[in-house]
């Protein structure tokens, strides 16, 4: 009972009945040949080193709707391809927060919830259009509240079977992220410390998302 009541109240700023959080993100990439070393290192640094790293395969679809005043809003739907009975995950990611240049990580608003599999048809009925989709396949680690993902990006072939995936590059994407309620200090420094320990194998840095979209 206690955990339920704790989950309902006291976690972050409430927007209506939804808990809004902030996502702190650092990204980097590593070539395929060196990925093995990175996995060994991460296995030693992160929690639960006695079990082998957890693999995952996720399929993400990004839907966009065009508002009448011209601005676009996009929502991300992510489903797990290896655990099929888990629900879909719907996420809204806001714009990168500008301001503090010294902050080590990207900070953006994140509102998410779990949904059933009707999510995709629901969004399409609402007027969202599929912008792009991709498949991520790789390993994930956690250390306390930090989550590290080392995954390869694949292109989804529209006509081929879901098993035929075409990798986008010869490298792995490395992401270090924390989802935390607004107003918590010190997360960015904690992440920076962790990212520094992975240098020079992989350099995790903040990426200016506005420049990517141009």
């Amino acid at each position, binding site marked *: 009972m206690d955990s339920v009541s704790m989950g309902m109240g006291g976690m972050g700023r409430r927007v209506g009945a939804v808990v809004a959080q902030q996502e702190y993100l650092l990204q980097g990439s590593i070539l395929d040949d060196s990925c093995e070393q990175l996995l060994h290192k991460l296995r030693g640094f992160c929690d639960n080193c006695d079990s082998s790293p957890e693999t*995952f395969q996720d399929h993400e679809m990004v839907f966009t709707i065009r508002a009448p005043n011209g601005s676009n809003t996009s929502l991300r739907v992510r489903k797990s391809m290896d*655990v099929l009975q*888990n*629900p879909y995950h719907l996420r809204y990611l806001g714009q990168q927060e500008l301001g503090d240049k010294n902050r080590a990580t990207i900070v953006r608003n994140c509102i998410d919830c779990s*949904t059933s599999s009707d999510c995709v048809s629901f969004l399409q009925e609402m007027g969202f259009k599929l912008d792009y989709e991709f498949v991520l396949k790789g390993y*994930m680690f*956690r250390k306390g509240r930090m*989550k590290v993902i080392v995954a390869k990006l694949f292109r989804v072939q529209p006509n081929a079977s879901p098993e035929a995936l075409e990798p986008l590059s010869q490298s792995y994407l490395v992401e270090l992220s924390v989802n935390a309620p607004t107003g918590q200090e010190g997360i960015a420094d904690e992440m920076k410390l962790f990212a520094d320990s992975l240098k020079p194998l992989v350099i995790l840095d903040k990426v200016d998302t506005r420049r990517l979209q141009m």
Partner: protein
Amino acid sequence: MSSLSVNVSVEPLDEYQVQEITYDGQEKYIQPLSMSENLTKMVQKIDFAKIDTEASDGTNGVEAMDETPEVESKELATFQPSLWPFDSIRNKLKQALTEVTVLYDVLSICKDKRYLVLDPVSQEPIENKPITALVAKKKALATVATIISNGCDRMRSAQTEANRNRSTDFHSELFQMRQNWRLRKKENSILGDLSYRSAGSRFPHSGTFEVTKNEEQCTSGTGSRASALKVKVPSDLEGGSFFQVKTQKDNEVIGDGEVSVPIPPVLQSNVDLNWHQKLENAQNVLFNKELFAQLAREAVQLQLPIPTTVIGNQIIASLFPGVQLSIVLCHTTIHGKIKHQKNSSLAIPSKQDSPNKPVLEHSLHQLLRELHHNTLHHPMPHPTTATLGVSRKRYLAGPEAYDRQTIAELNKSDTILEQIIAQTQHDLLRLRTMFMIDTLASEIKDPIIVAHWLCLNSATKSSVKINIVSYGYESLCRTPLVIHISTKSLKAILRDGRVINMSYESQELRYLLLNQVSQHQVFAIQALSKPMGWKVLSLNINVGVGHVEPIGTASSIVLVSPNGDRIIAIRCGPHSGIEVKMCSSPQEFYASALVRDRKWQNLTGSYREVDWERIEGKNFINKIEYLMASLTNY
């Protein structure tokens, strides 16, 4: 020349001068000057202005020196065209000669004392004793020799030490300790952590131990080597502890919680243990403390129909009416005393208690370890963007629209005490069932009861497959049944698919098995009738006629011979036993006033009981086969 002159011999070097040595050891030589370079070099040395002045100047008082400027001029005149290889050497020699003559001139002038006077600078005369130099050299060599011999001795002794007894060095032992235990340095002392906190425990005990150097060099008589480390564990973790888990019948005084327990031999030794053993024992004590605290907390919180009691270091929980589970934590100190142990005031002979069950003790340990594991190992989110650290069922709470009560139920899990009670209950029930089946199998000889226990089972579920066969007719008829044993009930599945749920009372199983045995006989007869050629007229599992069986129902079968003139009727009951009757036709016919026709003799007569036990045959089926064979006539 004069006798004062010194012979100078000039030899060319047979190797070139080294300019540089590269990193891979190759030497680069200075290339000898080529002819033109040589010439240029020497031309530069010529001072044409000086040649004339020297030729005309005759200040040198030495005769030999007079020659040199002339020689020089002569040489210089003939120098340029000739390219002589020893030129540089000759020039250098000439230079040396010049300098020496100048020096000579200066000295002769000084001797004259007219223009220059040499005045000695007063200084201590350095006494050059070759003896002292020799002695000094000897001393230096002696010190060098001693240093080298010291080093050699030390290395040799270190090697022999290492070969004889390994790791008596403090640092190497500390290194070994660091491989297994967490150590940290705090000011001057080295502290270590032997708690299970890094494995997920939340027990408030700190569990720190201290490591110090072992100063004493004790040589104990038993031959154990002195270790270089000494560890000091917290006082409440000293000694060793273990659990005693046993089931006991109800008729014991449990009011004062006194129990006598035998000390396992591992903890009985009084010899000072090495640090490794000490640390392990202390960690074990801490683990057992945490386990007992957890069990005691749950015992107080749990709402069972018969409440559990916690007295001192003993927890008593009720399993079945009249049977209890007792969990005792025994802690022994180093000197062999047992804490919390007083002489038993129980006069009950111990044969009523079942002995300590080490399997359950192991189960207790496993359960606590599982608890630790679950605090650390949270399942990872799939998809990766979902919330971290939430259980799998919680993910579905949103999309499935769980209400508060459902979510609260998700969080509920069995406590350690409940789980151990369930395991003990199952253990007892399994033993009872085994005992009952074995007793019946040895009592009943006619159909054979064969029990196969499945080897794959869990702590709370087991199964047994029972086959009832008749000896000699195994392939003919077999009555199977499966019994599933869970914690408090038995479930039997019979050959026709019926499911019978029984409680923990083993009498119910006995009645069921007896019933099955009697039914088997009837089914076996039915199976036998086919090869014998007899026809089954009726088969009844639950007969409603005849005397009532106290438990269960009787079954019956009626068979007719191939040519129809003999009928056998068999009735089998679990308590009433087996009755065999037969009738034959044609019966004896006596014409009477009512019945006149001869044809009425073909009706079957009355049934007569057969004393089947006196028929030849190994078992009942065999006897009935004999009976059927003897009654058959074509």
